[in-house]
């Protein structure tokens, strides 16, 4: 374990220094790696640890992005504050949905449908509200300053998204080792068995969905002020919901490192193959690659790549120890 922390500290030091050598485009890829690792980690709290499968997490990204942008454009409120407002609004929506799902015992695929339903309904509502830009969305004005959460170049975004990712890892690690985390895991493993041992599965499911939604919404604000354009079909759409769960699934659900490893593998693959195939007029081919990769992982590594990395690192250290 100490070796793992040492390795991670070294990796973090390297990552902190990286922008010295990288160009804008490559920095952008790293921003996306951190961004998706963070999103995956947020989703991981609800699905990876507590076992309630959400296929509508784009909902919270959208709420986060629209709330902070609306507050900034209407009343000039700093997105840093708007980000917290978006988080709280997201949490409220999630708790309403969670109440419906958990109180009435919607499990498995029925809960999945509920999450998709909430995301789709919100997408349609936002698409019809003039003040939120309806179908065509909102363009953000570019006024770079720290207060406005807007910056020239990719470097500040690199460090902010890195911060998001690292903090999310620490938070999830703290949850995982706490009483709360253990009750969440018991809920995931077997709700009835957990109840029989005195675990209030409803309460812990509600806590999990609240944390997960809050964290996810913060990424929405980041996205809005990085891309400068909000589009309801993108921000509340199925495609984003699927995109953000791919990394923890491939890396390893219910682990702190899973979403991060998944993102370091998948995001560059996605960005590079997207650019490469688009040049050859094959837009969308990278999504097919994605699908194939997902099928292979689910078939042959159902608990994610992390299991194999663990095995490999143990093997390396064990043989090193022998010498």
């Amino acid at each position: 374990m100490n070796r793992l922390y040492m390795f991670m500290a070294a990796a973090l030091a390297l990552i902190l220094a990286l922008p010295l050598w990288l160009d804008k485009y490559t920095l952008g890829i790293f921003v996306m790696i951190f961004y998706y690792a963070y999103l995956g980690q947020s989703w991981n709290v609800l699905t990876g640890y507590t076992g309630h499968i959400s296929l509508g997490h784009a909902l919270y990204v959208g709420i986060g992005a629209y709330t902070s942008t609306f507050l900034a454009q209407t009343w000039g409120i700093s997105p840093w504050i708007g980000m917290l407002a978006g988080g709280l609004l997201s949490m409220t929506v999630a708790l309403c949905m969670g109440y419906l799902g958990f109180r009435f015992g919607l499990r498995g695929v029925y809960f999945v449908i509920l999450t998709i339903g909430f995301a789709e309904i919100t997408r349609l509502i936002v698409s019809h509200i003039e003040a939120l830009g309806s179908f065509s969305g909102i363009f953000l004005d570019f006024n770079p300053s720290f207060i406005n959460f807007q910056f020239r170049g990719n470097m500040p975004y690199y460090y902010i998204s890195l911060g998001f990712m690292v903090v999310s890892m620490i938070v999830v690690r703290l949850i995982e080792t706490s009483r709360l985390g253990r009750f969440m895991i018991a809920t995931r493993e077997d709700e009835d068995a957990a109840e029989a041992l005195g675990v209030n599965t409803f309460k812990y499911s509600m806590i999990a969905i609240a944390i997960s939604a809050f964290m996810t919404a913060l990424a929405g604000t980041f996205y809005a002020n990085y891309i400068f354009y909000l589009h309801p079909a993108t921000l509340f759409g199925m495609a984003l919901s699927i995109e953000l769960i791919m990394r923890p699934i491939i890396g390893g659900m219910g682990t702190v490192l899973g979403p991060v490893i998944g993102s370091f593998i998948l995001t560059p693959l996605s960005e590079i193959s997207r650019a490469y195939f688009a040049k050859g007029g094959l837009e969308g081919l990278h999504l097919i690659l994605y699908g194939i990769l997902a099928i292979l992982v689910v078939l042959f590594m159902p608990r994610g790549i992390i299991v194999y990395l663990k095995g490999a690192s143990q093997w390396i250290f064990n043989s090193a120890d022998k010498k």
Partner: protein
Amino acid sequence: MSMLKVNHLTKSFGGLTAVDSLSFELKEGEILGLIGPNGAGKTTVFNCLSGFSPPDLGEVLFKGQAVTGMKPHAICQMGLARTFQIVKPFLTISVLDNVMIGALIGERSISAAEKKSMEILHMAGLGSMANTEAQGLPLPMRKRLELAKCLATDPLVLLLDEVMAGLNATEVDEMISLIRQVNSKGVSILMIEHVMRGVMALSQSVIVINYGRKIAEGPPEQVVKDQGVIEAYLGKEFLDAQG
């Protein structure tokens, strides 16, 4: 003192009355057996007692307090814990972590819960398996784990649902002595069991149910000789053939 008192418990599923106006009492420190042929409604009784399926009629008093209609976790926190006939280990976490879930209900500190769980695991003979994932355990050990998880919640009353089913003779003996040990610490036990050796060895009193109704009650030696009980298990033809 009465630990658990059940009055006119009734539960129907559609047209089928699984438990029919059943009343009984579990005294402090007692081991009470609940037996009956397959489909007699034994597990349904447990589901009613533990809050998994609230009864249609009747009441359940735990230490004189009505628990009817309460959620399973609340009933467990009061001190009434159950095991499942089809064991429900938390598969992908370690045996120790399994037991710690129960221990953490009454204990906020992780390290104290870990210490307590290790003691329980040693008592249940699972000490050496503490760091194994639960899915690596064979059935006899899973049955012990099921019991160990319950014990970690500090129960006053244990509902054991066929913890001896599927065990061989040696394993049954080990389970008997484990249950005795638990009972000697003051835990009252209501056990559903088909393994008669276990029932005979452990229970001071036995209730026999069939079609959800109580058909006999008394000390085990007496109950197994009861004509009505023999008929319920083996049929009227058997009694006739024996003359």
